């Protein structure tokens, strides 16, 4: 009887500990989620026009164009524009309808 009682206490205690561990993991999940949102915002800031202009002027020494020269070439233009692919607007159908903009951004980073 005493063993049965002890077993019950151990089980309850174990369940309670597991429950609190689950809560801890849920909190970790929230923490990581917040971190992901913050990193997305950081990516967006790094890609902002103000930063791009600052880097272009300060680091690369670029200046605004004063004269425009148009060249006509017989070679066909590239099919895709040379911009970071993660900023492409999705033209796909149902397969990507549930992908939000930040998932589209992250998917196309080389290490993701």
């Amino acid at each position, binding site marked *: 009887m005493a063993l049965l009682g002890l077993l019950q206490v151990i089980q309850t205690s174990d*369940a309670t500990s597991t*429950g609190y561990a689950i809560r801890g993991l849920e909190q970790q999940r929230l923490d990581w989620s917040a971190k992901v949102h913050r990193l997305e*915002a950081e990516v967006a800031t790094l890609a902002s026009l103000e930063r791009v202009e600052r880097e272009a002027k300060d680091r690369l020494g670029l200046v605004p164009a004063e004269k425009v020269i*148009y060249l006509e070439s017989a070679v066909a233009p590239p099919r895709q524009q040379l911009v970071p692919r993660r900023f492409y607007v999705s033209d796909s159908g149902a397969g990507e309808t*549930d992908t939000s903009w930040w998932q589209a951004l992250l998917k196309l980073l080389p290490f993701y």
Partner: protein
Amino acid sequence: MSGRASRVSWRLIVLALLFAGGAVGLVGRLVYLQILHHDYYAQEAEQEHLSRQTVRPTRGAILDRNGYPLATTLDAYDLYIERQAWQNKPSARRWAEAVAPLVDQSVDDILAGIADEPSGDYTLALGLDYERGRSIIDAGLPGLKAVPSARRFYPEGDLASNLLGFIGRDHVGLAGLEADLQEELAGTPGDLYFERDSLGDPIPFGDWRGKPPVPGGDVRLTIDRYVQRLVEEELDRQIEKHAASGGTIIVMDPRSGAILAMASRPSFRLSRLDLSGDVDPNLFRNRAVTDVYEPGSVMKVITMSGAVDLGLVNANTTYYDAGYVTVGGYTITNWDFSTNGTQTATELLQKSLNTGAIWLADLIGPDNFYANLRRFGFDEPSNSGLGGEAAGLVRSSDEEGWYPVDLATNSFGQGIAATPLQVITAVAAVANGGKLMQPYIVEEVVGPQGRRAYEPVVVRQAISEASARAVAQMMNEVVEGVPYHLARVPGYHVAGKTGTTIVSIPGGYDLNSTIASFVGFAPAAHPQMIMLVKIDQPQDDPLGGRVAAPVFGTLAPKILAYLNVKPDALELVQGGTLEP
């Protein structure tokens, strides 16, 4: 002996009765509590053991047409301190010293705020970023209450402030697109019921019910952030240069009605928005759609379109300009008081002759004139989806208070009122083969329910395609037929019209104050971009041709190159290089 055994003591009976009474009372009380008032006490117990929590959904992002985020959401915390828990001054100072650096407040300010009232909660921080909030929560300070929250973040800074708008503390949109698209962006809050312990924390494996929140959808606009930035910087520059009171620039694709950029001043700065103090709500409105003005000579394009479409004139039809016209006892002159003799319809537009516009209106007649205005979308909202949009004001000939002189003044854009968006949309119909398009700013909404894309809407065929082509050609002559026109763009054929309006005030007009405007599109034969520039009350020069047209001349080359629009006015020079 048998007599003594059957005798029951009265004391025993009393005791038995007492016990029985107690038992009955107990049972009765149990019946009272557990049966008769079961529901009440069950509810009390549920309130004691169960907590309800509303889970805020993540607000959707607002993106530009290429997917660059203009507004996103970051996780945050709202922190409060229970004043009663911080009554011990030495401890309170110690705790305040721990949190002060994390909430960017001084220790004395925190302590003063707590001492301000005897009880209740002191708001320590609202929208505090997540990591700092967690640090404070993990410090385990007594009396600290943390509510998960969120805050809006703008990666492009103040770009498109009065277009994007802002949200309030309750995360409900209060102005701009944040308010107009509240339903799409907000999502649906979740509900959570759970058994809690004495500390208020959920009991593991306890009763847990609820529905998860549904996040808001991401909204992709037709706005291009690069074009928006070009436009805003130039608008700010021009307002400063001319000491103007404000202005508006709109860039649109005339083929679809998609708004590529929309900037208005005065405006506010999203990065420094503080609603707690005195704020001027006028700064929050999107003047491109809320404010009306008298379009002035730009309206001559619409008047001309009506006359051409009715077959009354063509580009070479002539009339005689005596320098003035008398209507209903009023004498109306040209804007420069010039007298030009015989003029063609094209020259009428080139020289922006008021007398010519009145001649056209007389040919058209009042009924057809106002019908023509309505076909071009005046006197009705353009249904762009932007909040606070004004319908404009047109008093037609069958309305009370109309006089024949109104037809004359309306023909050159005075005495009627329209929003900048209405004006550019109307001229865009001329650029678009006569088709009036509904302007729009939302390209698509992507959310948990799927993807909703918005298609261009043809409102109506305002004038025939042939008439539109003819008027566009005349507008091209306005820019290229006038020497040194400041709206010319090297490499492109441009069509446009200037406007200079005197500002209306209660009781009349302020003759010393103008609105300088220009509407132009390029390439003239196959327009892919149309722009309206409106500068309000420039102090140094009143004229649209000298204030607004050069803005088009500055911005259009950059925008056309960015949009990869092939030049249509190039001369081949040596070496195979094409230079404008």
